[in-house]
């Protein structure tokens, strides 16, 4: 089977108005469109049932699309499935393994299944990179959950795919293993593999992704560079701890929309990071000085991706559209 090597930066995956309505009438995907470039890591965030797994499953051939089109390296996943599937590796969410097979055999099986000639040297490289080499002769049922997860990644990498789908790769694994997984993903990206992962862990997306896509109710409500997203939708706050409690805000501070804590000892000023250089912090501080309000400490904080995500999925539809468009 011919091996296609997509150019880094070219569009390796193009999802065009993809919809999926299951037999019972449930619309799991609603006209999802997304282009992914070779070599990037994109994280798909969304609550349970949002459509993340359906999207991945449709691209990988596990679910039949109702309408729309998906191109992998310019090839249609339906008509050119031999080419497209050979380019894709999938690590499913569930720990599904053949309990009575050895690690070596199950990974070798996957390579053959995806049309590649046996290559023990490659299998060895994959197993070593995933710290599985000393377990190669172990039966899968004897492995821990974390090790099984690694085996699933090894199976997905056995045929040298150019796109790797990781569906909740760190679900149910401990913190140490999660960090190991992030390191593995980082190594894979360095080798030019495009990675699309779904996750519940916002910190995971924040840590490793280049772009973030948010899916909710089957719709891709936002796709943005991670840093741009945080800058665009993230809020910054300035907190000032006062020496003396205030009973109320003087009129001169009204234009800034400051919040006063219940005990009157803290002032909170929320501003938008997109207003580069014009966030009025200096004006606020000047107004405070003029009003004779003194403070003993101050600090700023920025909202995390998690807070952005919660804010997005809880927004009404029109609000999301506006947010996505900005």
């Amino acid at each position, binding site marked *: 089977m011919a091996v296609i090597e997509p150019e880094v930066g070219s569009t390796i995956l193009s999802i065009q108005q993809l919809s999926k309505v299951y037999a019972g009438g449930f619309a799991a995907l609603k006209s999802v469109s997304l282009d992914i470039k070779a070599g990037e890591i994109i994280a798909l965030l969304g609550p349970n049932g949002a459509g993340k797994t359906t999207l991945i499953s449709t691209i990988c051939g596990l679910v039949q699309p109702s309408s729309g089109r998906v191109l992998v390296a310019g090839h249609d996943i339906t008509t050119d499935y031999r080419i497209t599937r050979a380019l*894709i590796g999938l690590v499913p969410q569930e720990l599904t393994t053949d*309990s009575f097979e050895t690690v070596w055999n199950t990974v070798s099986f996957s390579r*053959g*299944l995806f049309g590649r000639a046996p290559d023990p040297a490659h299998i060895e490289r994959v197993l070593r990179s995933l710290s599985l080499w000393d377990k190669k002769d172990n039966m899968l049922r004897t492995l821990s959950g974390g090790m099984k997860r690694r085996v699933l990644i090894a199976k997905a990498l056995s045929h040298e795919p150019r796109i790797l789908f990781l569906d909740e790769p760190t679900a149910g694994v401990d913190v140490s293993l999660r960090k190991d997984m992030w390191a593995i993903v980082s190594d894979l990206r360095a080798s030019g593999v495009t990675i699309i992962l779904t996750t519940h862990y916002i910190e995971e997306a924040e840590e490793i992704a280049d772009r973030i896509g948010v899916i909710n109710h089957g719709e891709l409500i936002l796709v943005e560079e991670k840093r741009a997203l945080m800058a665009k939708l993230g809020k910054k706050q300035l907190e000032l701890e006062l020496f003396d409690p205030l009973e109320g805000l003087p009129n001169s501070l009204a234009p800034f929309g400051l919040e006063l804590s219940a005990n009157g000892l803290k002032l909170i000023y929320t501003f938008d990071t997109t207003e580069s250089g014009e966030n009025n912090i200096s004006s606020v501080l000047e107004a405070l000085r003029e009003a004779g309000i003194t403070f003993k400490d101050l600090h700023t904080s920025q909202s995390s991706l998690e807070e952005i995500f919660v804010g997005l999925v809880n927004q009404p539809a029109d609000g999301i559209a506006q947010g996505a468009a900005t």
Partner: protein
Amino acid sequence: MSTILSRVMNYYAVLAIYKFEMARMRRTLLQSIVTPVLTTSLYFIVFGAAIGSRIQEVGGVGYGAFIVPGLIMLSLLTNSISNASFGIYFPKFSGTVYEVLSAPVSTLEVVLGYVGAAATKAIILGLIILATAGFFIELRIAHPIIMLLFIVLTALSFSLFGFILGIWADNFEKLSIVPALIITPLVFLGGSFYSTDMLPPVWQSISLMNPVLYLVSGLRWSFYEISEVNVWVSLVGVSLFLLVCLGVVYAIFRTGYRLRP
């Protein structure tokens, strides 16, 4: 050879599935080989030696020899179906089927892998039973090529049927219900252990509606040149059944029935 093949089909995938399934047979050698051989030996002891000695020849053949094709057919049918149905049902049950469904493999390649392995196992078993029979009776095979043809066609077509059953089944009960409640009774009532000449005329006519009768009859003809129905009718019948099963499997993969929602 493999390079040429890999250009026209996913040869490595067929081989991977086939080897995986055959490895399962090796892992379960006791269940796959020893148990059927023991069961067959018991049939020979009970029907061949104990009861058979009191039964006169059937169609000019000793009773022990008469039941050999029926025993082979019983084993072929039940094992083809159970091997193939389990082969595809278990990955569905455990979830590992995702890998086959997301691989660059065609329907034909999946079928060649799973059904080929199931049929191979059934054929090996049929031949082992034939060899086992050689310990109990003097074997005479008039048309060995036709015998092999019947064994291969039966193993292939019923492995395909088992494959369909494995896709259709959504629990273990459904998986075992067809072999236990349909196939085994049909084999027993299909002239495996008797000639339909021994039945009253009305039951003879009813027996002709049993498809397994044609298989047993055809296989028996290849041994002793005695049959209930014309051997060509049997061959055409099993070939048609093979084609129907192929058509159903093709439709299953085309529509994604119980595989791809």
